[in-house]
């Protein structure tokens, strides 16, 4: 043999080469995770049984894709998205306000906030929805002086009842989330900001809130996803949401159960989209809190490809 290889360190004339080359890769038998295999097989078996049960059941699966993009269903989807976003906007804006009021030194404002949170957290949202819708029994008219005057029943549309019912309830929960966030910011931050001549309001907006966001955003994402699902209750005030749309279609076409699956699938699609959005939002508000942000899944894929490509090249030329 005249060919020198550095893969044979025991051969005498290869020794100088092996001293300069990279050390041989460590070979070890990895720990066997038998538990993982067992649990995976069990899970697959259960899944198979479930699929079998559903396939044999009296569900006409063919109608599910047929109705997925039905005009009425899509209108319900649009309405569900609208009411979710608007209720969350009401909830977040009012929640921040309530949190600031709750932490205020003024005993009147902090008591008002306390009372609000006490009431709206202490009663079921379903009851609140019904109350808004039926307040006409208490107030026959709504009278805002010269600006607006109408019967309560024609003022309180299903949309407005749904928005108030969901948004005002959400505000109570958001207030608690925001309060925790505001209190998580170090007092030295407020002091430094005040020492620079920034007012209370500026300090709150520029220094405290952006840092509180790191604590506020993750639970708010959960609230958003919860809200999307809670909107299915607005059937109580006759708002035409996704669930209302699918049950209407189900009743007229006779495919009641199938339409429930259509609804479930749409809710899953929407909550999945929200989860992705939440991930990127959390990343954005983590700025400055860690030395290096972790890569996004997309960046991870890119990096993995580049690395393996680089390795192959290095291996080829070594």
């Amino acid at each position: 043999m005249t060919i020198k290889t550095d893969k044979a360190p025991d051969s005498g004339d290869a020794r100088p080469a092996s001293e300069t080359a990279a050390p041989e890769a460590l070979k070890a038998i990895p720990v066997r995770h038998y538990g993982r295999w067992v649990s995976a097989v069990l899970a697959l078996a259960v899944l198979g049984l479930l699929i079998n049960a559903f396939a044999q059941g009296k569900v006409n699966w063919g109608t599910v894709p047929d109705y997925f993009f039905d005009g009425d269903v899509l209108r319900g989807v649009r309405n569900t998205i609208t009411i979710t976003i608007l209720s969350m906007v009401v909830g977040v804006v009012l929640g921040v306000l309530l949190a600031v009021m709750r932490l205020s030194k003024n005993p009147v404002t902090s008591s008002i906030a306390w009372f609000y949170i006490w009431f709206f957290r202490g009663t079921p949202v379903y009851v609140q929805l019904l109350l808004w819708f039926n307040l006409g029994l208490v107030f026959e008219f709504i009278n805002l002086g010269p600006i607006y005057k109408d019967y309560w029943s024609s003022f309180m549309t299903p949309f407005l009842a749904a928005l108030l019912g969901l948004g005002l309830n959400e505000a109570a929960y958001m207030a608690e989330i925001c309060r925790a966030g505001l209190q998580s910011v170090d007092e030295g931050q407020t002091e430094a900001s005040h020492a620079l001549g920034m007012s209370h309001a500026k300090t709150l907006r520029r220094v405290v809130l952006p840092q509180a966001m790191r604590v506020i955003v993750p639970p708010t994402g959960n609230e958003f996803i919860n809200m999307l699902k809670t909107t299915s209750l607005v059937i109580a005030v006759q708002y035409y949401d996704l669930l209302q749309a699918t049950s209407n279609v189900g009743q007229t076409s006779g495919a009641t159960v199938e339409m429930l699956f259509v609804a479930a699938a749409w809710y899953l699609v929407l909550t999945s989209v929200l989860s992705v959005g939440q991930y990127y939002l959390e990343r954005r508000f983590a700025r400055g809190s860690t030395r290096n942000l972790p890569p996004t899944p997309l960046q991870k894929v890119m990096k993995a490809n580049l690395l393996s490509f680089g390795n192959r090249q290095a291996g080829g030329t070594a």
Partner: protein
Amino acid sequence: MTATPMVKAEGVHKSFGAVQVLKGIDLEVAPREVFCLIGPSGSGKSTFLRCINHLEKINGGRLYVDGELVGYRQQGNKLYELKDREVAAQRRDIGMVFQRFNLFPHMTAVENVMEAPVQVKRETKAVARERALKLLDRVGLADKAGNYPSQLSGGQQQRVAIARALAMEPKLMLFDEPTSALDPELVGDVLDVMRDLAEEGMTMVVVTHEMGFAREVGDSLVFMDNGVVVESGDPREVLTNPRHERTKSFLSKVL
């Protein structure tokens, strides 16, 4: 002295609940003076410093900065508390540097320095950025402008904090143990920046345990203990020939 003192304290009292922390502080800081404040932990040095820019409200006495009453307006013999906006306006002229830096962690170094000029003085971002970069250069951190505080060492963070305070062009700078939270090898850089500042004529009140700095840079020195001024005078004099027993025993512990 004919010039208005930059800081004037007359019988300043401060208590937290039932605990009296400042028990009648009288002192004057002249313009362009480097005024050092030393004393054992818990003697009320930080509290006094925080009273100067009204981060703490005093319970008795009077505190003036550049001839103006801090935090109050006097009409006849009645005192009126100033509104939030008016207090903020007074603080614009007083820079403060904290022991734990207190940089804004969600902003880069240059954004930290720009923040107050843009938000408080309504400077345009371009103008504020240019000045902020100059200030960072002055504290030796021109290349760290884009770093977040978590990406800077303690000494670098403290120098950014000094630049941030200077961006408001204050007439008085307060330093609360600016080097106490630093690794020993990083103390020098911060003290160098402070020394330059003193040479340029900035009025400074410095709470410190760096006796070398007090001796070299300080124009006057006060030893505080238990909420009162025990001894004051020329730093070299007080540090080498303390007259009071309490000063002597404190110095013997730190020197």
